[in-house]
């Protein structure tokens, strides 16, 4: 299954090269370092908030996982820089990835 197949089911996986073991982000079929095949690591990953802003009453934040992957996610609480968060919900809607953290 692809990263997007898992994501559309609500599972966030970390894409990793089976040859050089590097994280491949954004997800791709092949590693952008050695062109090795990419596998998907499942888990309950912890990230940290790097930056945030707010639109209307909703906060959005830049979250970093494993010092490599960065995503923009929604967060329901008032965020703080460096705050540890986990993905609470994810998916794909109208072609866009959706990420929620708390």
């Amino acid at each position, binding site marked *: 299954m692809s990263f997007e197949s898992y994501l559309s089911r609500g599972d966030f996986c970390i894409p990793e090269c089976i040859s050089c073991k590097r994280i491949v982000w954004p997800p791709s079929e092949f590693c952008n370092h050695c062109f090795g095949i990419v596998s998907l690591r499942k888990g309950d990953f912890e990230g940290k908030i790097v930056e945030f802003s707010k*639109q209307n009453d909703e906060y959005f934040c830049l979250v970093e996982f494993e010092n490599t992957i960065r995503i923009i996610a929604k967060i329901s609480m008032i965020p703080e820089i460096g705050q540890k968060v986990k993905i609470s919900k994810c998916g794909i809607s109208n072609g866009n990835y959706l990420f929620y953290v708390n």
Partner: protein
Amino acid sequence: MNNMNKVGIIAYGITPFTKEDKKIESVLLKSTKNLFENNPNIDRNDIDAVLVSTNNNSKYLSPILSEMAGIQPKIAHSIESLCNSGTNSIVSAYSYIASGLADMVLVAGAERYDSPGQILEWDNSRGEFKHPIFWASIFAKSYKREYSISDEQLALVSVKNHKQAKENPNAISDKTYTIQDVMNSKKLTEDLRLLDCSRPCTGSASIILVSEEKVKKITDTSVWITGIGQKTTSAGFTKNTSLSSMESTKAAGQSALKMSNKDITNIDVAEIHDAFSVCEPIALESLGFSKLGKGTDMIKELYDTNNFKINPRGGLIGSGHPLGATGIAQTIEITQQLQSNADKRQVDDAKVGLVHNMSAAATSSTVLVLEK
């Protein structure tokens, strides 16, 4: 490098930037028509290449423009690189001439107000937040936090650039604003107001680049491209290693200055890619015009002294941002400045100018150095 042909700018044409709903082919032709009408001494049979800069989805635009303008070039193709398509096209034209593949190249850029180049659909790491206002908000928040900058200090970028755009007859804006006006404009996010943003619009700009040998036969007021720097660090916003500086701009600026054998202190006038107000101080710092965190001080001093050195035509915020035309319009402005032909926008004794044009949250930058 030393064996390359020298490349000069000999002619330009531009349209007003508007919200007009016109076909891209028609928009594109308008600035090219303007160019040839203003330069009747240029023989269209001498044009070796026609390069079209746009994000529009219409196909085969270079052959179409060539046919509409009565040109049968050897080389004809489009170039797309989101917001810095224009300077990418100029670099391609430069390369054709420097290598000897062409002696005269027409570069024409155009965009409609509804350009598909505003959203980078591929960048899924932005989640639902693909519109540029979101990366700009994150840049603004980070820059303000790191250097203790206020919203009012950033608002002055918009105040300055709208004021300068008032002297630009092709700018979309003819209004001036106060800091309070900017602060009171519609709040798009916690860190960005409507007047902090450049506006997508309809417009086009055309320019002709020629080899040194050809320049001498046509004009004695050519402006020379003496430095080119380009750098792409990624395509996705979330790969930016810094949110309060522009790494691609730093690299491109250093390369361009090195090629032209100039220092940033030699630059008399510059066009800076102020897609959002926060971009101007960050770009000034990344290019070396000011120290880190001091870009807004420089902007305040320029504003207080009515000095048009940075973004004399009003930048993207005041002029409007027709993506494919922007880099070419910036280059035209610096050309006019160096030719002492910029009317009320003229910077005194401008001999060396710089163009900074970037794409997609500064993941890619082009810097040009121009000289008399």
